[in-house]
Each structure stands twice: as C-alpha cells, then as structure tokens.
C-alpha cells in the first residue's frame, strides 16, 4: 500500500522549547492511525506541521508524495479535512449557516450539508445559533465541517474530548464508515478506548518522541504476565497467575462451586503507556 504521510527525522523547536525531538513514521492509504500522549507531548504540533500551519525545524515531511513546504495550496486544502481543539465557529450564525459557508468554499452540493449533520447527530438542531450550543455540540459541528467535502485525509485533534459516551459512540461509527469509504484518518487522543476502537495502529508519543508504534493487539501482546481474576461467592476476589498453581486454583473454585465469574486482566493501552513512560495520560 502506498504511503499517504511520510515523516523522517522530524524536529520542531520553538524559541524556548523543543516540542518534537525526532519523529519518524509513515501512514498508509486507508489507514486510521492514532497518536496517544499526555498533553504537551507534541500531538497538536505534529498536526500543525502536517497541515502546513507550522514549518518543521528540520526533517523530511511528505504528504501525498509532496514535500510539505509545497503544500500550502488550495489543491492540498481540498484533499484534507481538519479538526483541531481551537477550530473556531461563527458564534452568531446557525449551525447550518456555518456549514453553508464551508460548503461553498469547498464547492460541495447543498444536500451534503444535511448528510454531515446527520452523521454528527445534529440534523434537528441545525437552525440553532452556535453561541447557544454546548461544548460537545460545537465539537460535533466542527467535525461536520471537517468531513463536509469527504477529504482523502482527515486530521482529528482530540475529536471527542468534549462528547458524552452516547455521542462518542455515534461519532466513532461515523468515522469508521468514512474510513471504509477510503478516508485516511490521523487522529490524536488521550482516550485509550478511542484508540482501541478506531485505530489500525497506535503511536505512543511522550516528550516529543514516539516510544512505540504498532497495532493495538501487538501492543497488548507485549505483556507476558497476564493475571486472571476469579470472583468467588461471598464477594471474594482471587487473582492468580497463568501457571500451574493458578490452574489448580481455578479448577478448585469451579469444582467446589465457589466461582462466580472469571476474567483475564489484559493490560489496557493505558497500562502499557504508564509502564513505558512512568506517566499517566
């Protein structure tokens, strides 16, 4: 599969701070890649560089096989969609009017506006003035705006940070569908669940460096000593290892009829991140 994004030895320094120390990764066409990291780890900086809002200090950055410094063009902007944590909306306009502007800028059909409103679960609210919306609703409007023109490559900077679980799930379904239709998705999050549900590959970003980059399954499979929890009658929980002794304990608990439930304690991506970096997300 061809690469949509190629990043080699990327460094970004601000006056008093190196935000990205050395970052290397590729993103394949059709992939959903997630960058996970605590705040300040450099996620937004990477997106800004990939969307031609910031110049890299050094390194090679290519999108669609073109060096990024040649991509501050309307043609590139037409192919990408962007949601960042401070993408602004016109507060005095309705949801619909906000999207109507972008519909004209991207030259999409008017009917597409209702389609994306449906996709972010805001069709019934489209006449509402943005000023009066909750943070989560605004985030969904911004998302609708980012996917209005069915971009080939979509950048999402913490797209569901302000959403309730129901809408998060709804949006995740929408993003999966968009991805199936061919959109490559680059997303940042500090929600492990989100990374797990959406991403083909996950990068752990810490202090401006990628510490690990792999599929969620492989990342989890790195953990060898997975324990097993047994919940027994009388509200007792026993944690055993995956060894002979553990096997015996499980066997006994079943035979004596004490066992209520059993589950293996696979690490979450969050656990792995903490172990790797000594930091919480």
């Amino acid at each position: 599969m061809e690469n949509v994004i190629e990043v080699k030895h990327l460094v970004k320094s601000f006056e008093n701070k190196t935000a990205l120390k050395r970052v290397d990764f590729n993103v394949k066409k059709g992939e959903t890649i997630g960058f996970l990291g605590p705040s300040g780890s450099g996620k937004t900086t990477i997106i800004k560089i990939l969307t031609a809002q910031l110049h890299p200090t050094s390194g090679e950055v290519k999108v669609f096989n073109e060096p990024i410094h040649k991509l501050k063009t309307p043609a590139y902007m037409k192919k990408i969609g962007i949601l960042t944590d401070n993408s602004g909306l016109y507060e005095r306009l309705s949801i619909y009017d906000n999207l109507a502007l972008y519909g004209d800028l991207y030259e999409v059909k008017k009917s597409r506006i209702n389609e994306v409103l449906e996709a972010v679960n805001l069709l019934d609210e489209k006449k509402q003035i943005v000023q009066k919306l909750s943070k989560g609703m605004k985030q969904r409007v911004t998302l609708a705006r980012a996917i209005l023109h069915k971009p080939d490559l979509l950048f999402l900077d913490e797209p569901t940070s302000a959403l309730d679980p129901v809408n998060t799930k709804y949006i995740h379904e929408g993003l999966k569908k968009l991805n199936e239709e061919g959109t490559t998705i680059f997303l940042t999050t500090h929600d492990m669940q989100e990374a797990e549900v959406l991403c083909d590959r996950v990068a752990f970003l810490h202090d401006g460096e990628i510490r690990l980059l792999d599929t969620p399954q492989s990342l989890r499979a790195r953990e060898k000593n997975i324990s097993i929890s047994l919940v027994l009658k009388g509200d007792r929980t026993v944690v055993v290892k995956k060894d002979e002794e553990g096997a015996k304990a499980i066997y006994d608990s079943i035979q004596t009829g004490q066992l209520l439930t059993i589950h293996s304690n696979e690490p979450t991506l969050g656990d792995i991140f903490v172990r790797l970096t000594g930091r919480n997300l």
Partner: protein
Amino acid sequence: MTFSTKRVNAIFIKDWKDLQRNSYILFTAAIPLFFAAWLGRIGADSAILASYPVNLALVIAGAFIQAAMVAEEKEKNTLRGLLLSPANTLEILVGKSALSAVMTIVIITGSILLSGYHVPSLPVFAVSILLGLIIYLAIGTILGLLSRTVMESSIIGMPVLVVFGMASMVKTTIENEVLVKVIDYLPSEQLNHIWVRLGEGEGLSAVSGNMAVLLLWAAASFFATMLIYRKNSMDYS
C-alpha cells in the same frame, strides 16, 4: 492564481448574516450618519466642511469596522478555518472586505444625503471614493491582522483613526511645517483637495496629481496587506 467569485460571495454572505446580529458593528456604523445628520441640521455648507462626513464614513466604516471584523476572525479562531480551506489569499482578502465595502458605500451615500452635501462631478467623485475605499479597507485589514482581539483592534485603531480621519480637521491649528507637509500627503487630505477642486467646477485634469498620489497609496497598502496576511497565515497558534 485562480479567483472564484463563488468563494468570495460565500464569505460576503456569511458576514452579512453575521452583521444582522452584531450590535457592536451596527452601532459603530451609525456614528458617521449621526455626525452627517448633525452637520445637515446646523446647515454647514462649505464643500470642505460637508466632505468631513464622507471622510469619517471612510475611516469608520472602511478602516475601523473592517479592522474589528478581521480581528474577530482572529480572536474566535475562524480565520484559521478560512486559511485551511481551498480559498486563496486574494479570495479571502476580497471576500473579507466585501461587506465593509458595501457598508461604506451605503454610509457615504447616507452621509451625503443627511448632510446635504452637493456632489460635484459624480464620475470623478466616485473614482476618488473608490480609491479611498481601497486604501482604508487595506489599512483596516492590516490593523485587524495585527491585533489579536476586537478590543485590541479598537485600541490600536484609535490613533490611526485620529491621524487618517481628523488630521485634516486640525491641520489649520498645526504650526510645524514638516508635519503640515506630511498631512498634505495623507489620503484624507488628497481626497479633500479633490473634492474642493471639483466643487469649484474643475475637472479631472485639475486633480490628476492627487489621484496619482491616491493610486500610489492604494497600491502600497494593498501589497502591504498581502504581505502581512501571508506572514500571519503561518506560525501562529
């Protein structure tokens, strides 16, 4: 560079819808009209006095309001959205100036009617207004781009408003010759010269020198706007 009137129009329509709920802009736009109405009531009639409201309309609607509108796009992080859309620099700059331009023309027309100013030689007068419009819109856009908030734009806009709007009015009280010479070359002075000459029944040939100065101002401020816009479009967060 391509130029899509559809995209320009989209930005204009957006600003037009926004204006209807924007009391700050609506209130500001009314100021030159009140001034013109007041001049009309006291019966000011000399051409130079009557042209003040036109000047004020240019400064307030062209520059001050434009600055506030551009600054708000920065303050609310919406300018970034335009920059990251397929609209190019010229489309955004023209689109973002379109509503202020229309408003300025409406306010000038209103001011002329209210003050009872008699427009001499309409075609030449219209050309001078057009050049003035370009200059003040460019200055307003630059002010807006240099400010981070609407509040800031009105603060740094104030001295500009005084220099470009009122220097002519206070010129007679200034003694310093160098300063007077500088004021002479300001767009407002050039416009006043033109209107006074036209009022005396002169034609285009009598004011071609002033027109040339205005044309220079227009070209210089347009390119300055492009430059500052381009600079602004990167590396801000």
